[in-house]
């Protein structure tokens, strides 16, 4: 089980104080349980697995993926005659890890290439943290030296434009806003047009929260996407689905629906500073092959981290 020691080494580099702090609270419940588990059951037995099942399900991993994972772990344990809890835990991470990565390199940072601006469309259901995540992403790439433009594509919700404008102020970035209740795609057009003309590197497009079962609102999103494509042919190059870490099984339905309308290139999982087991991201990756790109760890503009699967699983399963 080289993985655990690899992870431990990676972790001990101490380049991640912030991440640790943020995740500490949320992961401790899970890891404490796993550790208790180990102490309680020295031998591999049914209780270990039924308790593991509880842990995974309570982390919103979902019944299917939980049962599938346990199945694999059981098979592996039998085959390799594992009967020590630490080895078992490490085999568990191994399984989760390789199922997630599927032997491919997964993207995290936004990719910049070509002469045209990179347009990132930010979508999701109501209240998940779209606008705040935009502020965080803007902060990240502004600090990386990019010329960033914000577009207030939520012309519907009361106070939404003001909210993004305030973030723009704080960040010292330009914000394109439309008239109240104007067509969001016209605001987006104006924004992307400006970005192309004035050589911006990154355009972050905010959208109104919408529930995925509202066809007319989903069509509106499709239109926004089309409008972007008119100005930036391969745009939006990124479409991020923002997902609240407390979301239950409907998260997969959300991902599926948004992916059908605007191809999702990644998930940003927010509110991971809370209780956050956030297991639905594993189910989403498993079913739809959409990777997590960033992780939100608070309400301030620098509360954003690159999603690091190793750290995530390590935190989830081992903790300290």
């Amino acid at each position, binding site marked *: 089980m080289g993985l655990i020691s690899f992870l431990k080494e990676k972790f001990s580099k101490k380049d991640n104080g912030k991440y640790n702090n943020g995740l500490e609270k949320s992961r401790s419940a899970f890891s404490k349980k796993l550790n208790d588990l180990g102490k309680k059951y020295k031998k591999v037995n049914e209780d270990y697995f039924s308790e593991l099942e509880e842990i995974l399900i309570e982390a*919103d991993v979902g019944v299917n993926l939980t049962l599938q994972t346990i199945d694999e772990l059981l098979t592996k344990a039998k085959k390799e005659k594992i009967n020590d809890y630490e080895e078992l835990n490490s085999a568990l991470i191994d399984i989760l890890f390789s199922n997630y990565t599927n032997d491919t390199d997964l993207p995290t940072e936004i990719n910049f290439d070509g002469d045209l601006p990179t347009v990132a469309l930010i979508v999701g259901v*109501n209240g998940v943290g779209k606008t705040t995540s935009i502020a965080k992403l803007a902060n990240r790439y502004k600090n990386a030296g990019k010329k960033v433009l914000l577009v207030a594509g939520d012309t519907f919700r009361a106070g*939404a434009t003001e*909210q993004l404008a305030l973030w723009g102020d704080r960040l010292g970035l330009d914000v394109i806003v439309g008239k109240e209740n104007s067509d969001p795609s016209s605001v987006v057009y104006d924004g992307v047009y400006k970005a192309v003309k004035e050589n911006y590197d990154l355009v972050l497009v905010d959208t109104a929260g919408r529930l995925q079962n509202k066809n007319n609102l989903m069509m509106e999103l499709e239109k926004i996407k089309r409008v972007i494509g008119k100005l930036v042919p391969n745009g939006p190059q990124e479409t991020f689905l923002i997902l609240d870490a407390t979301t239950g099984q409907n998260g997969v339905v959300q991902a599926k629906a948004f992916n059908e309308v605007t191809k999702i290139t990644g998930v940003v999982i927010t509110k991971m500073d809370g*209780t956050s087991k956030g297991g639905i991201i594993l189910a989403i990756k498993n079913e739809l092959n959409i990777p997590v790109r960033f992780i939100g760890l608070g309400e301030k503009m620098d509360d954003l981290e690159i999603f690091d699967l190793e750290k995530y699983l390590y935190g989830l399963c081992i903790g300290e």
Partner: protein
Amino acid sequence: MAFDSLTDKLSNIFKRLRGQARITESNIDEMLKEIRIALLEADVNFKVVKNFLENVKQKAIGQDVVGKINPSQLIVKIVHDEIVDLLGGTDCELNVKKSPSTIMLVGLQGTGKTTTAAKLANFLKNKQKKKVLLTACDVYRPAAIDQLGQLAKSIGVDMFTMGTSVSPVEISLKAKQKAIDEDYDVVIIDTAGRLSIDEQLMEELTLIKKAVNPEEVFFLVDSASGQDTYNTANIFNEKVGLTGFIMSKFDGDARGGSALSIRYLTHLPIKFIGVGEKVGDLDIFHPDRMADRILGMGDVVTLVEKAQEQFDEKEAKKTVNKMLNGSFNLDDMLAQMKQVNKLGSLGGILKLIPGMPKITPEQQAYAEKEMRTFEIVINSMTKEERQHPEILKFSRKQRICLGSGKTMQDINKVLKKYEQSKQMMEQMAKMRKNGGGGFPGNFPGGGFPGGGFPGNFPGGFGR
């Protein structure tokens, strides 16, 4: 839908049990396993499911299944009734008799507190003629006060704010004083979203509560929230002390199992559900419908209600009459297509009916596009042509082509659709004459491709 599969799965188990007359300790386990999965998929908390199944088991064991036509439905009914039982009765009574009364809204970030504050204000103002003061105590999220202010203005109630540099405790105190001085009936306090592990902010809630001594403290539950709702609600209840729940985003398609978790945990009432983004979108909580939904049984009542809201009855009746007396023309067809499209855009409600074909966004888009084309084509016709499409010969069609910018093919499509609709209607009229029952609830498949859209609404729907 999950309901179908749950009943199916239970039926299969029963098939294997053929010959066994009773539900027993030994044969029930397999059934419980399926029920367990259904509940977990609906986000009912793990611990709650465990205890819940124990109750179901007690109720089911010993039940006589001999001679029961469908024993699996018997089990589902036991489960269903048990859920309804746990969910409690309908209770939307607000404790606002005293003047002023105070209602406080609390919960995690993004669960819908501000919108719900406005919905409650709207409800109290319009349904109970109360003078309401909305109070902006979210001093953290950028533009939260703007949001509440705009909402307050739109429903015509006052908002109290002291900006963002005063503590929420002080703001709420001043609001209450203002309410006393100026004869407000109800003060609604919108608080900032917070994590239950944030000790400092949880303490702030306790202080606000101490300061204003509210009659009601509602915790907002996002309908799509997962397993952790159980723990979060527990902490909020222990630290702040709640009087009830409001479930938000109920117009989504999440199964909402957390309703069961929080009821199980606290036995506090679920007062309202939020069913949309507008201030009027607040509804009463119905335990039986919630049980259907948790079990994925399709909330048919909600469906019919929603459909009726969207459906212009007068328009529908007019069309029906025209159909029946054979005077259906192109204008009628267009009107009818618009109605059907409106229903289609409700999208989600169709999913509420078990076994209903699903319209994909592509199909919906196609239908909308087709309708736009139809509209343009039909609008380029003269009145006479619209009422008597049979006079449309080549030269007239050519003129319409030029006028509408559409192709000959488009025009022929419109006419073909018209012919089909007309034919279908004539058949229906015949059926009716032959005593085939009331209006068949069978709308000619307006606009939707490949018959994919169910031109077939549940009976009685077109009332």
